């Protein structure tokens, strides 16, 4: 019986846990996956021996060391497998990668989340969509700033790297922005982005990232995502689509 080197505590619906799955795929290593149900109280052993906060993802190495926090885990896996080339050797590119992740997390993602839940009035919806588009334009500007040759498709060019990995689960859930709005709104949003020349680099990047095999393998189905998202954020407001 082979002892697995790594145990990953996971839930497929959790985008943060998806990051770790992508890193595992990209670094091509063996691991055991333990599913943690996020809808019921955590098992005693999980809180005591793995993560007192009860969250996923978590990593337990063969020697018993536990690592928490999705970005810390992803970077640990990248650090341990330099041949996967997930971390740039250039200090400036590394700083820019971290910054893109932070910028997305603190500015773009909240605006997207707000737009996805702006369901109460057309005025609220319009304002939220405007703000989301403005944030995507800022992301686009960051992408263009780094990639001076304007080749893509990934953040650093031809090489898929840490920043792409960290944001992939959120890019793969892009449809959430309009999933709970009326269908004409969904169509209009897609057309709007296509017609906006200030988000073209963003769209190219997003498409390349979400189509990457490691990302496809690590992303739950639309049904799972819609169910998890609406349970968490919409409660009684779920609209049947």
């Amino acid at each position: 019986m082979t002892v697995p080197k790594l145990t990953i505590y996971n839930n497929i619906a959790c985008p943060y846990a998806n990051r770790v799955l992508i890193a595992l795929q990209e670094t091509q290593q063996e691991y055991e996956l333990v599913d943690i149900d996020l809808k019921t109280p955590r098992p005693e052993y999980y809180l005591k021996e793995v993560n007192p906060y009860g969250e996923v993802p978590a990593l337990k190495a063969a020697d018993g060391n536990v690592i928490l926090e999705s970005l810390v885990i992803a970077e640990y896996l990248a650090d341990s497998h330099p041949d996967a080339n997930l971390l740039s050797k250039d200090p400036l590119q590394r700083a820019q990668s971290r910054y893109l992740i932070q910028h997305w997390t603190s500015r773009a993602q909240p605006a997207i989340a707000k737009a996805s839940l702006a369901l109460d009035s057309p005025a609220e919806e319009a304002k939220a969509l405007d703000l989301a588009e403005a944030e995507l334009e800022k992301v686009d500007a960051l992408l263009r700033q780094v990639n001076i040759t304007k080749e893509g498709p990934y953040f650093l060019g031809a090489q898929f790297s840490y920043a792409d990995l960290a944001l992939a689960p959120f890019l793969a859930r892009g449809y959430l922005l309009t999933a709970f709005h009326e269908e004409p709104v969904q169509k209009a949003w897609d057309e709007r982005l296509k017609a906006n020349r200030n988000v073209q680099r963003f769209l190219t990047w997003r498409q390349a990232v979400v189509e990457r095999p490691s990302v496809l393998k690590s992303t739950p189905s639309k049904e799972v995502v819609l169910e998890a998202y609406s349970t968490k954020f919409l409660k009684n407001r779920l609209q049947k689509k």
Partner: protein
Amino acid sequence: MTVSKLVLYNSNLCPYAARAVLALAETNQEHEVVPIDLSVPRPEWYLKDINPYGQVPALKINDKDIILESLFVAEYIADLHPEAGLLPKDALQRAQTRYLIHHWGARTQPAHHKATFITDAAEAAANRETLVAELEKVNKLLVDAHRVESDGQGPFFLGDKFTFADLAIAPFLARFFLLGQYNDVKEITKAEFPQLERFFQWKEAVLARSSVQKATPSQETLVSSYRKWVK
């Protein structure tokens, strides 16, 4: 890429900017400093050319590229000088470094903030207990730090060497004494809480480091500058 010129946009009072100052000091990296006054609206040029969010620190490289966010600035400087050994080579130590920094910012620092700035007596007592509980978690992280023999038995996070985790949290350890300056919360000491021995050993060592002392304003200055946070 050779770095010929670094400009740090800094404020002496800002603990986040202090991280960049420490990284520059610990690596002996040549640089210029442009002071930014945080008590007045930012100048137009700063918002336009350096940081639209107006914050410090910011680092300009070779009159071209700009890095924002204190941890990214500090890590960039550390990366320029692998010989300074600020970032451990071991992947697990790097992970533990990142986690400690994250943990301090997400859990410990907010607990310290509440215990320090909320003046209501009943709340203050509860906040002190919460802070102690959070410090126990930090104590455990310090005790559980993965070390190899060459790391030694020293007081820093990873042993004898002052490394990135010590650097990133140092400015906040330097402001730890603010607890009790604005309310009646009693000081948290090793005598009262012997289970925090490792935490106090660590804090003492970090605050004794000369780069940390040079980068920390006087206690009087800190007490008066933080008064605006009192609730």
